């Protein structure tokens, strides 16, 4: 085993990751606050009114970043899950479960803001479009993951079962998306063309990007906070917790 691998495994142990996470949280929190302020300022105050959608389009500044994050977080969970199953590191499972509630929150927010956007623009809270449907299913996958982990008492088993489910889910999401799209073209239901994005002004694009980065920093900060809680809960009896955790 070479030196860098040893080093890596050192940080993969909960005891050494706990203080590292503690040092990273303020950094990501500050980043989230600054980016959020800049993104909101650009999105709500500076960006021009859209020619077709008026001011209603401003929902895009939370809707699109929330949707991106919900999908991205599931992929990150699958990454940790694969790592946990192949190297049997305890931290991976904790990271997977730390990310899930935030991912579920973003999936829910994406649906919620999507409905609020859809009502004034298409005249319906919900249409059976491929993206909306897959997003809803992604939300169900998050709920399933959280429910499965909550139902299993032994943390090691909960981690492994959750990891398997996350990997099965990540393989299935594209298949589900494809099948719903296929279904949609056959039925020619609500003809909503979301691909035809209004030619976006640079300020809009920049605003959206800043909001996405803000959500990203927020996710990292919150996930680190949660993983610290999970580490403490699981290792409450160990020596290092007694010595070091009570700052």
């Amino acid at each position, binding site marked *: 085993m070479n030196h860098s691998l040893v080093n890596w495994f050192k940080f993969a142990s909960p005891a050494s990751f706990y203080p590292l996470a503690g040092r990273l949280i303020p950094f990501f929190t500050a980043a989230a606050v600054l980016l959020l302020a800049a993104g909101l300022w650009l999105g709500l105050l500076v960006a021009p009114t859209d020619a077709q959608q008026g001011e209603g389009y401003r929902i895009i500044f939370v809707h699109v970043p929330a949707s991106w994050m919900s999908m991205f977080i599931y992929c990150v969970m699958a990454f940790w899950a694969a790592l946990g199953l192949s190297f049997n590191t305890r931290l991976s499972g904790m990271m997977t479960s730390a990310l899930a509630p935030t991912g579920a929150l973003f999936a829910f927010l994406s649906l919620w803001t999507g409905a609020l956007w859809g009502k004034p623009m298409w005249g319906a809270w919900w249409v059976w479009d491929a993206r909306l449907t897959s997003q809803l299913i992604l939300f169900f*996958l998050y709920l399933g993951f959280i429910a499965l982990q909550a*139902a299993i008492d032994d943390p090691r088993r909960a981690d492994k079962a959750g990891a398997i489910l996350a990997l099965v889910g990540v393989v299935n999401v594209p298949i589900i998306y494809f*099948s719903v799209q296929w279904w949609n073209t056959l039925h020619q239901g609500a003809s909503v063309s979301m691909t035809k994005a209004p030619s976006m002004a640079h300020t809009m694009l920049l605003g959206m990007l800043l909001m996405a980065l803000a959500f990203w920093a927020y996710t990292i900060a919150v996930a680190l906070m949660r993983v610290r809680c999970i580490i403490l809960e699981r290792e409450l009896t160990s020596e290092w917790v007694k010595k070091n955790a009570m700052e």
Partner: protein
Amino acid sequence: MSRFLSPFIQSVRRDLLLAARHKTEIVTALFFFVIVVNLLPLGIGPDPDLLRKIAPGALWISALLATLLGLQRLFAPDHADGTLEQMALSPQSFTLLVAGKILAHWLVAGLPVVLIAPVLGLQFDLSGRSLLILTVSLLLGTPILSLIGAVGAALTLGVRGSGALLSLLILPLYIPALIFGAGAVEADLAGLGPDGHLSLLAALLVVSAFFAPWVATVALRVALE
């Protein structure tokens, strides 16, 4: 080759023999399927045009629910009496034994549904051609339900409230099979031909037959720890 397959065949034989000693369970699942299918016209109305339209979806969703009913008992009894442990300790491939159990589950829970579906299709006034396509889609699709369901059954084995949890985990994963299966008949009626849907369903079957027993085995080993 036969030596390699013999544990698989023994596993199928054992589960079929056990099912034969529990005839009521098979009949209950089948009866559940028939009742759910028959409830739909009562809830929606007897308009033949409407019924013809919803028939594939109705039969497919009922098949999905009927499969779910049997899945909870796929591994649970073997887990409870310790025989699953013995299978996990077999010098033969545990995955093959699990695959055998899944096949047996389909033969007991899926195949009867496929066989009775054309009769129920008649109640929905489907044409002969639609009936044939529907039956083929169920024949290709119900094994997928057993295969993916086995992963869920293995993940929730011995867990509190496993029944409801199993539905929550598995039903979203059933969506592609439902769409391609029920869609085949509608595509045919729309003049597109059922081939596209049926070949996608077949592809889904091949992929899940390849991966699902293996994933279920990994999940079972986790559950046995």
